[in-house]
């Protein structure tokens, strides 16, 4: 009966009940079920208290602030400047626009930690441009979708804030830990694009830019690109807490968009703040519900039982990591990254960090990268749907064109899983992690 909560939740998920209601219903029913005679209705009150206190925490304030900063940057017309800057850097390489797409995603990820925002903003600009240059629509959409998963891996990252809050890991260490894997994915995708460009004779986007052109394009992006510098610099040097850094980044982005590059009007602000509020509110509610769910799992001894079950399969940590990578990847195909982390994080972290002694930052990054890459995989990958909607191409066609890029991403997942130094080198160098 101890795993009833999981089955109940999975059933509710399968029949289409929204995750947040599924978590709450499974928590209530299982408490009633598993506690048997010792159940008292006021135990349900504890669930309510868990929901409220789960979202009432100062470190969580970083989440709406990051989302707001990303929204401001998206709306502030920065995308075009980033693309232009990327073009001066890599546009002269064969398959230039594919490289521009990936490079823009890397730059964009420092401003917005959302893969969906990346696909939508860059896709609407670069997919038509790539089509005009002789690329197939499916290839253009596939590059956009594959590279947009870099967004939540290179900081700032909403899912890392969620993970840090739920599992009590340092967000600064997670941010630093995400940089190398994010850049590795970017480099891997560019290498694959280059290979495909030569094989398919894709064109060069532009002539090699002079250093003056690069500098001029760089100047255009200077003010917005200072946002990640303030954000990461502030956090990594310990000058700001992540919450403070997120707030300052949002305020800075607002000032730049309104007064410096003047791409945002005052009358657009209420709509923009509402959009950021909705995105944040939905995640906050989900965090509250998942806190209640974890609490119930703990109360009925289900978390400990699941840990025992996983460890009974094998005690070889490498084999378990192999299986968990596959499981997380499959979960990512069906669930959005935030909910996947909220539901599975506490359970898997018990097994891998507490029982098997894996480094908490290393495991956090493995989990975040897995569920993020899952966003671009069928059948439920959100990024894939956005790419399909922006390009007008069928999801199946994009998914097929994405296979080489997906292979690169999977290879990098296994690389960072079995060589922890890729993840831990920066947090250690910066003194954020032992």
């Amino acid at each position, binding site marked *: 009966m101890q795993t009833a909560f999981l089955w109940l939740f999975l059933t509710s998920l399968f029949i*289409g009940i929204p995750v947040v209601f599924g978590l709450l219903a499974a928590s209530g029913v299982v408490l009633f079920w598993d506690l048997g005679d010792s159940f008292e*209705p006021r135990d349900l009150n504890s669930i309510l208290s868990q929901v409220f206190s789960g979202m009432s925490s100062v470190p969580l304030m970083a989440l709406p602030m990051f989302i707001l900063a990303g929204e401001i940057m998206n709306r502030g017309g920065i995308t075009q400047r980033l693309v232009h800057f990327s073009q001066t850097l890599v546009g002269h390489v064969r398959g230039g626009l594919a490289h521009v797409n990936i490079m823009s995603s890397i730059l964009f990820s420092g401003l917005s930690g959302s893969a969906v925002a990346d696909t939508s903003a860059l896709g609407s600009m670069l997919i038509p441009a790539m089509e005009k240059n002789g690329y197939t629509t499916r290839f253009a959409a596939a590059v956009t979708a594959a590279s947009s998963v870099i967004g939540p891996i290179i900081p700032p990252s909403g899912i890392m804030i969620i993970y840090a809050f739920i599992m009590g890991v340092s967000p600064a260490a997670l941010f630093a830990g995400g940089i190398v894997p994010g850049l590795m994915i970017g480099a891997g995708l560019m290498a694959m694009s280059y290979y495909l460009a030569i094989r398919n004779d894709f064109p060069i986007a532009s002539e090699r830019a002079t250093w003056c052109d690069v500098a001029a394009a760089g100047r255009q992006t200077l003010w917005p690109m200072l946002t990640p510098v303030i954000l990461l610099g502030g956090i990594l040097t310990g000058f700001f807490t992540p919450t403070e850094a997120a*707030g300052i980044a949002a305020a800075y982005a607002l000032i730049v968009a309104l007064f410096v590059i003047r791409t945002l009007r005052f009358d657009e602000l209420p709509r923009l703040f509402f959009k950021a509020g909705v995105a944040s509110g939905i995640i906050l509610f989900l965090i509250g519900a998942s806190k209640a769910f974890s609490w119930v799992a703990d109360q009925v001894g289900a978390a400990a039982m699941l840990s025992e079950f996983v460890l009974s399969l094998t005690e070889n940590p490498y084999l378990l990591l192999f299986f968990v990578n596959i499981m997380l990847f499959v979960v990512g195909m069906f669930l*959005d990254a935030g909910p996947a982390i909220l539901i599975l994080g506490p359970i898997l972290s018990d097994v891998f960090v507490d029982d098997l002694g894996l480094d908490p930052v290393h495991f956090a990054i493995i989990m975040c990268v897995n569920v993020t890459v899952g966003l671009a995989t069928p059948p439920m990958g959100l990024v894939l749907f956005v790419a399909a909607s922006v390009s007008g191409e069928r999801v199946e066609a994009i998914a097929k064109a994405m296979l080489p890029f997906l292979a690169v991403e999977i290879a990098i997942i296994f690389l960072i899983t079995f060589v922890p130094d890729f993840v831990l080198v920066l947090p250690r160098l910066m003194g954020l992690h032992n």
Partner: protein
Amino acid sequence: MVRLLTGVIVALRAVNRAVEWALKPLVALCVTAMLATVVWTVAARLSGISAPWTEKVMLILLPALAFLVAPIAYRRGANVSLDMLVNAMPARLARAHLLGVHVLIGVILLVALDLTLRKVGVAPLYLDPLLAALGIDLTSIRPFRAPIKIPVLGIEWRTVYLIMPASVALMLLANVELIGRYLLGLFDPHDQLVRPVRSFDQAHANVGE
């Protein structure tokens, strides 16, 4: 029957649209207050001013935002869910299935309304028979009436908790509208009211919903 149902849905739609209209500026205001509070915290720290209230305000604003957004998100179908099964069903069966899903959500919301009302010190006696019919008895939970105040701000926690029953009640209103829409779909699948409430992504087409 269909005419009565249509009338009820139209009335509920108008109410829910008014609710959304009223909540939108509150959500934007909440985010603005969050930004101002965080910036003030930094400014106060750097200038050596004591601002202990900022942390307490943040603790209120976060759940407040979640509960302000919840009714809108539920009605617009913005919460994360798996649609695979529903998408694989024929239209008529999908409508009947979604009707069942929203009835289940309705039960969860009824229990949540009872619990949240008790949390703010109200004994929701009128809900007892309804929940008893569903086999749920929450009458042994004593309404929370302790006058516990939030330090520094001096506001009672019960006042802050008011956002919870208010939000759940608004979600229930949306729930009844959605149930009505899917119910109508069983009788008249071509009625315009049957189609789902449009999502935020289709906001440009939201007129009339």
